[in-house]
Structure formats: structure tokens, C-alpha cells
């Protein structure tokens, strides 16, 4: 056994991972490690590269330079599918669900990595693993909405559908890109609390971008700040000072 085998690999390890879109640098090469069970808040003004960073960790896009490893495995070339879905789950702020399907199918979409194609097809006609969907929906408080068309739900309710889907997917790492920016403060607090409690139960890792410093302080253990596609700070939440924040968001 080598040393690397004995020490558990960090949940997320970026090694000089960077991304550009058509000559515009979205994220300058950045190295970052997130330990298992950590809750990392990604802060920064709009356009600072937060979404790009989260998309790299979520395997939604691949890096142009450097590597992204999840639980010690390089995800380059890993096809979206069962393997990646077991490692990481992604939640976006909105437009994340198929509006034309009923809620139960959007929740059960968390099983698509596990299901065979045949089972997936059959489930559209007569839902499979319904008990899973029911318990996940109950956990996030939308048990009575399962048979409704997803497009009829409010923004907050749709957010909970996305959470229920994550619950069913059970990824090792949860990545959430501004999960609550379209919600009022009370609902935002409720959703983030739900998100963190879901992540905590399974001892999982959470990486989320947030606009609300309050929510970050209340529910997260560590914070990084991005500005102009670069990492500006990386601190324990308890050490996050107001001066640091002011310079991160400063308009000058």
C-alpha cells in the first residue's frame, strides 16, 4: 500500500484548472482542495467565474488546463453517466427541471444513471421506484405535489423538486450554483437549511455559490472569494472579515 492509498483523497481537488471561452478567460488556473464533509461557500461579484468553477467541479464542462479530481479520480474523459452521477450532483438556481413532466418524473430523474434504458422508458408510463420518490418528496415538503405538472409549481417548490432529485441521486459531492438567488430571504434560508441538512446526513461535501453573506456565514464552514476570474481569498468561515468582503465586492 502506498501513502496515497492510506490517506483519503480530498472530495474535490483542482490542480491549476482553468477555463476560457473564445479567448475570454472565465477562470484563471486555480488550485483548490475541499475535504470530505466540508461546506464551501463560493463568494464573488457577478461575472467573477463562480459558475465556471462550479461547472468544472460538477463535470458539466472540462478544464482547458490542469485537472479536476473528485474523490481522488480525475474526471477528464469521464462520460456523464452513472459513474460521474455517483460522484457529484449539480443544482442550478432555476430552469433546471423539465417543465412538461410531472413532478414525480423530475424527482426520479435522479435515478437515470442507475436505471437501464428500458426501465427509464417504462417509468415514464408507470413510475418505477415510487417509494423513493415519495420519501424524497416528503423530506423536502412536496409530497402532495408529486402528480402535478412541474411547470405549475412556484419557484420555491421547483427548487425543492431539484433537491428531491439530488436526494435520490445521492452523489458524494453536491454542487449548487446560486441555489436561492431567486427566492425571498425566508424561503432562501429554508432551502439552504434543507440543502445543508441533506448533505450532512450522508456526511457529504457541499460547494455552493451564494450572493447572501448571511446565509454563507450561517450554514457554511469555509469561504473562498473570486474576483475577475481569480481566487482572492480562501478562509475558514470564522475568519471571514468585513474588510475582506468589502474588497471582494468593491466597485472601484
Amino acid at each position: 500500500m502506498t501513502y496515497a492509498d492510506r490517506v483519503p483523497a480530498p472530495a474535490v481537488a483542482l490542480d491549476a484548472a482553468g477555463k476560457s471561452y473564445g479567448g475570454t478567460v472565465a477562470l484563471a488556473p486555480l488550485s483548490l482542495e475541499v475535504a470530505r464533509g466540508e461546506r464551501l461557500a463560493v463568494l464573488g461579484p457577478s461575472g467573477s467565474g463562480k459558475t465556471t468553477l462550479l461547472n468544472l467541479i460538477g463535470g458539466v464542462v472540462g478544464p482547458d488546463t490542469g485537472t479536476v479530481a473528485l474523490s481522488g479520480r480525475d474526471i477528464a474523459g469521464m462520460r456523464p453517466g452513472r459513474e460521474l452521477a455517483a460522484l457529484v450532483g449539480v443544482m442550478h438556481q432555476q430552469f433546471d427541471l423539465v417543465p412538461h413532466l410531472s413532478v414525480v418524473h423530475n424527482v426520479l430523474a435522479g435515478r437515470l444513471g442507475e436505471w437501464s434504458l428500458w426501465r427509464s422508458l417504462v417509468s415514464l408510463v408507470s413510475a418505477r421506484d415510487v417509494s423513493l420518490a415519495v420519501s424524497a418528496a416528503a423530506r423536502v415538503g412536496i409530497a402532495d405535489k408529486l402528480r402535478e405538472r412541474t411547470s405549475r409549481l412556484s419557484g420555491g417548490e421547483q427548487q425543492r423538486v431539484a433537491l428531491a432529485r439530488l436526494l435520490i441521486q445521492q452523489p458524494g459531492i453536491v454542487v449548487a450554483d446560486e441555489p436561492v438567488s431567486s427566492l425571498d430571504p425566508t424561503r432562501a434560508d429554508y432551502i439552504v437549511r434543507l440543502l445543508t441538512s441533506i448533505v450532512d446526513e450522508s456526511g457529504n461535501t457541499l460547494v455552493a455559490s451564494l450572493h447572501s453573506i448571511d446565509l454563507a456565514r450561517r450554514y457554511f464552514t469555509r469561504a473562498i472569494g473570486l474576483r475577475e476570474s481569480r481566487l482572492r481569498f480562501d478562509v475558514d468561515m470564522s475568519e471571514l472579515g468585513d474588510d475582506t468582503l468589502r474588497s471582494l465586492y468593491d466597485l472601484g
Partner: protein
Amino acid sequence: MTHSEASTTSDRRLGVLRGRGLLTAFMVGAFLWSLTTVGWGGSLLHPGGLASLAEFLRAALTPELSPPFLRLTLESAWTTVAYAVAGICLAVIMGLAFGIPASGVLFRSAGLRVPAVGGLRFTLAFMRAIHELVWAWFFVVAVGLSPMAAVMALAIPYGGILGRVYADILNDVPEQPLRALRTAGASELKVLVYGRMPMALPDMLGYSFYRLECAIRAVAIMGFVGIGGLGLQVHLSLDDLFYGEVWTLLYAIIGLVALVDAWSSWVRRSLTS
């Protein structure tokens, strides 16, 4: 973006606008010129034309309503609907079979996608480039005046149109929900059935219904190459100058199209609400 890049982009935009302005001026000019080529000297209608037109229009108020002719109209209407529905059903199957692969969404590597999509799109273009009336003439020559001729003549060009439109609709579906399905572990085939198809279905269905409307008119036109149905009867009655009968048949066609329209909006409403 640097200052010089910004100025070249806006220069390019100005260039595009100027190009559009030129094109518009050209089109308006062409239209105005075309007006001068029409002989406005009063010979637009031939001498007896106005009288015939008046007679034809008057017959609109007195359609032929005798029981035997109504029976014939009903039978012809049934034939027309049967050909149109059979043709559209086949066209939908062909449209799905060609359109889904032609959208390219199932191919992961560009090396396979580019030639496959190109070939399929070309096939679809070929199918619809030839008008259904030409296909009808061709099939009547090949297999005679059988229902087969009507159905195939309709199914091939309409399959080409539906395939093309299905492919475009499947490509235009919003990307975010699909991305979410992928991160939940779905393969492209599962993304198709869980994301693309449900989101595309209302538009695909609506367009197919619109094509059914067109199919009814198309089958009616095929009467002129001898294929049975309302169109053939219109053709025969026109030859005999029985304008009352023509109007009965035209009302039947209008009624059918209106019925399909009502059916289609009912289905669409129940799908989207």
C-alpha cells in the same frame, strides 16, 4: 474586451445593417418594377370571364343539397380524410425515424455526427423537394389509381417536411434542463426521452396537426390526377360546370379543415395546461 475590439464589432454591426438596408431597397425596387410589367389595359379578364365569375359566386348561395349528392359528398369526404390520415401517420413515422437522428443529438463524436446528419438532412430535403402532386402522378403511373398511390404520394414529401421540422424543434429545446439530466447520470438517449421529447412534444404535435390540415387540401388537389375523394368530385363537377355541386364539395373541404383545426387546438390545450 479592448477598445479596438469593441470598435471592430460595432463596425461589423453597422456593415450588416447597411447590407440589410440595401437588400430591402432591392426587394422593394423589384416589386415596384414587377407592377409595371402587368398589362393594366383592362384585358386582365377575358370578355365572358366576369359573367362566369358572377355565376360561380352566385352558386355559393345555392349549393347542391340533393340527398344522392350529399351522400356522394360524404363518401368522398371520408375517402379524403382516410387518405390524409393514413398519409400523415406514415409521414409522422418517417419524420420521427429520420428527424431524431437528423437532429444529431444522439451522436457524441463529431466524426460520426457531421456525415450522418448531413446525409439524413439531404435525404429529407430530397423527399420534400418534390411536390406531393408530382409524387402522386409518379405513383399513379407506377401502381395505378390505388389508395396506396395517394398515401405514399403524401407520406414521402410530408415525411421530409416533418423530419426536418422535428429535428429543428428537438435542437431548439432549452439546454439547462438537459444539462441537469446529464449531471444526474442520464445518457443522451435518456436525455432524449426525459428532456427533449417532453419539451418538444407540444410543438411537434401542433405542427403535425397543421400538416394534417395541409394533407386534406393536398389530397383534394390529387383529385386532378385521378385519385379519389373530394378533389376528384370537384374536378368532375367543374368540368360539367355544375357550380352548385362544386360549392357543396368546397364547403365539405372547409368543414374538414375547420374540424381538424378545432381538434388540434383541443389536443394542444390539453397538453400544455
